[in-house]
């Protein structure tokens, strides 16, 4: 079975591209692996669209497979042989599957939603890719439910306050590790909880049944409403499709606090499908806004302190890619692979 690795960032400039490049280097050296590369955003540009600071460029080699939007090829120096044109439309044209025939830089803009990524991943495998990297976009994470191994890139770009960053990262990983409850046959299924009326209905159903499966998301407002039921939630089960559905509803810290209060009342919160966070990468870099000149400059927090504070907050491996390269990270990814 192929590795399908997603690389998501907690914010812009947390080192997604650096992590992607480091893992790509390792895949290139691994004779048993054929790379499949795609992205849920737009990556590989010379300069950051917002800060105007330089960015690392992605380079691909002959044989590698890619799934990218047509127009991203126009600004890439790599030569790509067209294997298949899909009908998946993006702002930069239809997604094509291609094989690299000449090395060079590649701008990867790919399928940007879950539904489309779900179609593209088997296609990459069909053409032989057995190590697929799904490059992330900004702070987006929703389509990453489709991958079977997730690397989270975080760092000073999220916040340069290391205490805050450590707490946030800890909570993020904890939510992603909520337990899997595979047996949901006897539970009531409901749609996304997006307003008070839906939250009221959810509470009523939950209090009259053993558990509820939400086939979608629950807004933070919905969670707040549920809290009002207090001790009555004890022993009940609230199941979501996956942990990412919990993360997209608001700031991590806020969501975590709401979920913790619910759990403290005895509500069991779990997911149907695991999103496996394999490792974290940390990046001391952040773009610092200069009011004097109205632009950004590169800045760094203390690398050692950053690494230590994150390592102490989570139960998964942490890497500083710039400092140590991608070798050990790659070992962890391959080792944890499920066959």
């Amino acid at each position, binding site marked *: 079975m192929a590795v399908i690795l997603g690389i998501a960032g907690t*914010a*812009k400039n947390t080192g997604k591209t650096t992590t992607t490049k480091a893992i790509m280097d390792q895949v290139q050296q691994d004779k048993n692996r054929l790379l499949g590369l795609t992205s*849920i*955003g*737009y*990556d590989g*540009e010379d300069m950051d*669209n*917002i800060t105007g600071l330089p960015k690392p460029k992605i380079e691909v080699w002959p044989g590698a497979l890619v799934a990218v*939007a047509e*127009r991203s090829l*126009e600004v890439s120096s790599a030569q790509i042989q067209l294997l298949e044109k899909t009908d998946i*439309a*993006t*702002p*930069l*044209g*239809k997604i094509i599957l291609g094989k690299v025939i000449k090395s060079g830089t590649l701008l990867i*803009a790919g399928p*940007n*939603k*879950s*539904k489309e990524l779900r179609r593209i991943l088997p296609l990459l495998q069909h053409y032989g890719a057995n190590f697929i990297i799904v490059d992330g*976009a*900004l*702070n*987006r*994470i*929703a*389509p990453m439910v489709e991958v079977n191994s997730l690397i989270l890139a975080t760092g000073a770009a999220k916040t340069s306050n290391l205490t805050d960053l450590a707490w946030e990262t800890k909570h993020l990983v904890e939510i992603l590790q909520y337990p899997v409850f595979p047996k949901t046959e006897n539970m009531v299924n409901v*749609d*996304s909880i*997006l*307003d008070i009326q*839906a939250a009221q209905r959810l509470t009523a159903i939950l209090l009259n049944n053993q558990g509820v499966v939400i*086939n*979608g*998301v629950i*807004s933070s*407002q919905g969670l707040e409403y549920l809290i009002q039921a207090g001790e009555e939630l004890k022993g009940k089960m609230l199941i979501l499709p996956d942990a*990412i*559905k919990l993360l*997209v*509803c608001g700031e991590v810290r806020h969501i975590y606090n709401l979920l913790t209060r619910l759990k403290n009342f005895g509500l069991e919160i779990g997911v149907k499908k695991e999103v496996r966070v394999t490792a974290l990468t940390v990046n001391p870099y952040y773009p610092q806004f200069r009011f004097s000149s109205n632009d950004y400059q590169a800045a760094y927090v203390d690398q050692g302190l950053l690494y230590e504070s994150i390592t102490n907050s989570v139960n998964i491996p942490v890497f500083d890619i710039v400092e140590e390269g991608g070798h050990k990270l790659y070992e962890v990814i391959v080792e944890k692979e499920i066959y």
Partner: protein
Amino acid sequence: MTKKVLLSPLDPVHDIGLKMIKRGLNEAGLETKLLPPDTPAEEIIRICMEGSFDTLLLSRTLGYGVAELLARFVDLADAAGLRDNVRIGIGGMAVRPEIAAELGFDAGFGPGTTVEEAVAFVEGREYSPQENEIKKEKVDIASPYTYHYKNQKIGSLLEKITMQIIAWAANKTSPGVERAKLRENDWDYQAFLKKEDDSKFYKHYAQLCDQIPKDFYLKGVMHPKTRELSKDELISLNTYISNMQKQMKVKKLQHTKKLPIVWNQYGTGCPFMDIAHVKASEGWGADGVVHFDPSWGARTEGFLNGNLTHQEDGTVITPNNLYRIHRMLEKSTLWQVRAHRGLNTAETVVLAGKIGADLTKINICYGSLAAGTDPARLTIDAFHAIKYAAKYKMPFDVVTNEELTGVPAYKAFAGMLIVADLAVRLGAKPILQPLFAFSPEVMVSGQMDDNYIDFNAAKIYALRSIVDAPIWPGAPIGFLTQTEDRVQSSLSTALHALLATSLGVDAISIASADEAYSGGPISIPSKIDTLRGVEESFRFLGLAGIKPTEKAQIWQEQMVIGIENVLSQIAEQGDFVQSLYDGVLGSKEEGAFPGRAGYNTVREE
């Protein structure tokens, strides 16, 4: 089934863009619902899902932290399952396809998004920004015209004069005519492109040239103000061209009316700067570009050869230089190579025709009365130039710049009409080029004391009352009204463009805002100044018009009488060339002096 579209401004206040799109979508028969500004994300997603909408259009001005906010919205929509059936587009200032892709939208609509674009997206037709790029095609301004005379008296006078010119020219030639013939018969553009040996051609050619080109061909001596580009320079020049072409997007200046088309000049002498100038003109909406060559080019018998850069204003005419410029032009850009005033007039037309120019520029009276070329010489050279222009199907304008020395408009027009009539008889398509200028004539006589409108309008009315022919005021419009103040210059150009569009002319030439006072090559920002100004003037006027006072009518009638009198005199005398020497078409008192370049070079065959 009718598509349902939900529109929601994420901005706290602004929803004008979406309101405009909503109007367009409704007109296209689509069902729409617009949410109030600042509706929470969860609410938008819920309404969209419950209402079974097919498309969600959001708008948001990008700013600090907004990208993250939009990405969060997209994530929530994805996780809620909205994106399984609903496509989401984002519009707003600073939105580009790349940003839309990064944020996870199905489409991104930046400033200038058309309603058609939004409708195409909603209807699920392929979203391709190229489709919405401005489609521009070359406009042939001469083809709608018949060249029939409405003023029969002037028509028959012109016939008499031009038949005399044709008879006069029948057995005459000049070194310029001979070079043109050689270039026409013995120089092959395809062979040039294949870099085939042309030494035999140039050995023969050198014999027909002045000392400077002769020394260049026979002894390898460079013209003192030029040098050949180095290999490295040529390589980086080619890289520059292909890089520029990749990112080029053309633009249209016209608003409701399709005319006038707008011309801009280039000719910095420097091949690199020429590219920047041409691309800036195209990028900011010029429909055509005019090649300006150095003034010494008109006074030197023969052309040079090679990839030449010129240390002064004016881009040297050589096959290589013209080829390079032609290659970098966008497909929709009209290209004019001027041939009009000197000793290389006929050969310029041949070269321009072979290399692919769309238009050229030929005249007799201005070149021989105010630009230094001998009248007989320019008459015979222009005669052949016109025949080549007909052969290569290049329309050409006939300038009346002798007005700038003080020749009154009616005399300049008489000269222009003679050349135009000759051209029609020789199978070519002439374009009349009256000046829109604060000319010495009006400075002295006061026709522009009150306004710049009446006298310029009178010129157009007069020409239209005489003949059905294309009119292209120039060159540039507003000549001598502009100053060293860029704002004043741009405004003056824009106002003259306003008058031109109101009068319904076919084309205009505009100067850059610093052209009159640049003291060297013009600058790109000032080129953009006037292009933007003219665009705004077209937008401002639309199909409305400017109303001249009754003076325009009076001056029109006077002009026509003046033209008739001049033509009668020439027809009576029966010798057009002699009438140029005699000052009938512009006298010494009026600042017109028959030129000396090429004097005594016309011989009988």
